[in-house]
C-alpha cells in the first residue's frame, strides 16, 4: 500500500503529528547557556493559541525534535517565545540558528496551570530554579496581565550565579514594579557583582517563611523541587496547595508513543502540570 506524497494538496486533513513552519524573529542570549527564541508564523503572528504551562514540539529537520515549554504568556498574541538551555544535540543546533532561520513547530500540547479557575483570587507563590523559570514565566506574565484576577504574588527565583538568572531585565523592570508583587532573588554562591541574597532556593524559601494561605507553583531541577516540597511542608503547606511540572522523554506529545508514561499517566497529555497530591498517587520511581 503506497502512501504517496500529496504535495500541498489543500484537501489534506492534517494529522496532529505534522508540524507548521515557524520563523525565528529574535534571539536573546539570556545566560551563558540559555537563549530565548521569539517565533512566529511565516506571515507573522502566532502559530496557535495556548494556555500557560503548555508545551510545543520544536523540530530541526534532520537533527531532531523535542518538547519545550512555551515561556511567553498567552496574552502575548503576536508570537511564541521559548527559552532553551544548550544541553544536547538538538538544543546545541538550535543555539547555532540565526534570526530569520526556520524551525518546525507543532502543538500546543499538555494540560496547563488552572489560571482561569482554581488560581483566581488566590495569593500565588512562584518558586523557580534555573531554566525552570521558563514554564512559570508564562503563568506569571498571564497573571500580571490580568492582575486584578489574582491576590498577592510572590516570586522566588534562584540560579547558580547572577549570570545564570534568566530574564533578569524583565524581572527587574516589570515584575518587581508590578502592583502587589514581590520578587525574591537568590544565587547559589557569593558573587562580587551581586548584592542580593545568596543561598539555595529551598533554604531561602524557609527563611522567607511564607504564610500557608498561598498556592505554590514550583519548577526547577528535580533535586530543588524535592527540597522545596519538604520545606513547604515544614512551613505548613499541604500537598494539594502545591503545583509542579514533570518532565520525561517525549516523541509524539499526544499520549501515544508510550515514552513519558508514569503509572497510568502520560506526562505529555495528562501533564506536564500536576498537583503534588496527584503525583503522590503515581509510583515513586518510573
Amino acid at each position, binding site marked *: *500500500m503506497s*502512501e504517496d506524497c500529496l504535495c500541498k494538496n489543500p484537501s489534506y486533513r492534517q494529522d*496532529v503529528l505534522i*508540524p507548521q513552519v515557524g520563523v525565528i524573529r529574535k534571539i536573546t542570549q539570556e545566560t551563558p547557556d540559555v537563549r530565548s527564541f521569539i517565533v512566529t508564523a511565516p506571515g507573522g503572528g502566532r502559530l496557535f493559541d495556548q494556555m500557560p504551562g503548555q508545551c510545543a514540539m520544536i523540530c530541526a529537520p534532520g537533527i531532531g525534535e523535542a518538547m519545550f515549554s512555551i515561556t511567553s504568556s498567552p496574552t502575548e498574541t503576536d508570537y511564541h517565545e521559548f527559552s532553551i538551555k544548550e544541553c544536547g544535540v*538538538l538544543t546545541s543546533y538550535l543555539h547555532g540558528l540565526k534570526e530569520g532561520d526556520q524551525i518546525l513547530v507543532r502543538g500546543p500540547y499538555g494540560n496547563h496551570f488552572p489560571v482561569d479557575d482554581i488560581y483566581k483570587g488566590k495569593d500565588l507563590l512562584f518558586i523557580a530554579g534555573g531554566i525552570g523559570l521558563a514554564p512559570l514565566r508564562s503563568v506569571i506574565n498571564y497573571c500580571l496581565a490580568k492582575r486584578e484576577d489574582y491576590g498577592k504574588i510572590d516570586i522566588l527565583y534562584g540560579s547558580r550565579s547572577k549570570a545564570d538568572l534568566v530574564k533578569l531585565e524583565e524581572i527587574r523592570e516589570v515584575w518587581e514594579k508590578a502592583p502587589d508583587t514581590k520578587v525574591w532573588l537568590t544565587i547559589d554562591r557569593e558573587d562580587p557583582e551581586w548584592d542580593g541574597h545568596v543561598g539555595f532556593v529551598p533554604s531561602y524559601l524557609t527563611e522567607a517563611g511564607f504564610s500557608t494561605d498561598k498556592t505554590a507553583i514550583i519548577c526547577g531541577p528535580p533535586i530543588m523541587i524535592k527540597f522545596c516540597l519538604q520545606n513547604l511542608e515544614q512551613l505548613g503547606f499541604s500537598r494539594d496547595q502545591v503545583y509542579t511540572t514533570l518532565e520525561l522523554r517525549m516523541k509524539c506529545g499526544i499520549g*501515544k508513543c508510550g515514552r513519558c508514561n508514569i503509572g497510568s499517566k502520560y506526562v505529555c497529555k495528562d501533564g506536564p502540570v500536576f498537583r503534588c497530591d496527584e503525583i503522590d498517587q503515581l509510583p515513586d520511581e*518510573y
Partner: protein
Amino acid sequence: MKKLSMNDVPKFLSSVGAAMDLFVPVRMTGATNWGVWDKEREVDLQTLKSVKSPKDVFFPQCQTMYTVSKGEDGFSIDPMKLTDQPFCVFGIRSCDVRALTVMDQVFLADPVDTFYKARREQAILVSLACHRPAQTCFCSVFGIDAAQCDGADVAMWMIGEELFLEGQTEKGNEFLGQFSELLSDTDDTASVEEEKESIRSITKKLPYSSLSLEGWGAGKTDEKFDDPNWQQLSDACLACGTCTFVCPTCQCYDIKDYDTGHGIQRYRCWDSCMYSDFTLMAAANNRTTQMQRYRQRFMHKLVYFPTNNNGMYMCVGCGRCVDRCPQALNIVKVIKTMDKGREEEKA
C-alpha cells in the same frame, strides 16, 4: 453461508488481489509473516501464528509521515497521503483482531491518529478460526473466542478441503458479493458448529487457559509496583525487544529522520520500552535498570492500560512472546510467578 474449495483459493485471491491491496500470511525463508499478496508468493493459511502479528498492516513498522524540503523560501512540508482505498486482510486470527481493538484505544483516542484511522476504516477483515490452537495460546483468558471472531467483517473456517465464509458486517457481505464467482452457497452449518465445538474443547484444555488475572487490572499499581519478584524475573532479560516486536498490542513508537539527499523524510517506527535509550534525555534517564524497563512493560499491559481503558488488558493471549522470548521471561511467567507469590502470602 458461503463455501470455497481450497483448490480455488489461489484463483479467489488472484481476483481479490487484482481489485485491491490484499494482505495474507506469506511463507518465506522458513517463516510465516504478513505481506502483500502476489501470485509468486506462497500463501500460508495452515500456520496458526505468523511470527510478527498483522499489526504491521495498520501500524507499519516504518511509516513516513511527511517530507520536509528546503527551498529558497524555506521549509516546505509535504504530508503523506492517507490510505483511501479499501484493502483486505485475509486469514487474520481472533486474537489479532482483538489486538486491533486494543490499539484503537490508543490511536483513535483524541487526538486521533489519522494515519491509523484511515487504515482501520478501509480494511476488510476476513478472519480464520484457529483449527488447532497451540499449547502457548491463552486468548480465552481475555474472553477471546478462537472459534468465532466477532470483530471480523467475514468470519472464515477451514474444514477439510473447504473454507466456509460468513459475512458479519455490511462491508463483509459486500465483499462476498463482489467476489462471488468462486463461492457457492451452503447450508452446512452443522460442519461449522462441529468445528467451533472442537476448537473450544481444545482451548479449554490448553495449559495456560486456567491462568488467573486476579490481583491485576485497573488501579492495582500500588499492589504490583513494588513486588519483589520483578528483580528476579528480569535478571535474565537480554533487553532484545523481541517481545515488543512480535506483540500484536505493543504500540510504542519512535519518530526519526531519514535524509534522502533531496529532503528529510520524517518517519515513525516501532520502538521498545525494553531498550535503555527509550527514556534517555539530554539531562538524565529516568529508567536506569533493566528491572525498571521490564516492570514498565508488564505494568503497562496489566495495570496502567486497564486503568485507563475500562479494565481492558493490553494482552490478547496470542502467546507469541511465549514462543519467541529467548529467555522465557514472557507475560505468562510474570502472571504465574506473581500469582504464586500471592498464594504464598495468603497461606
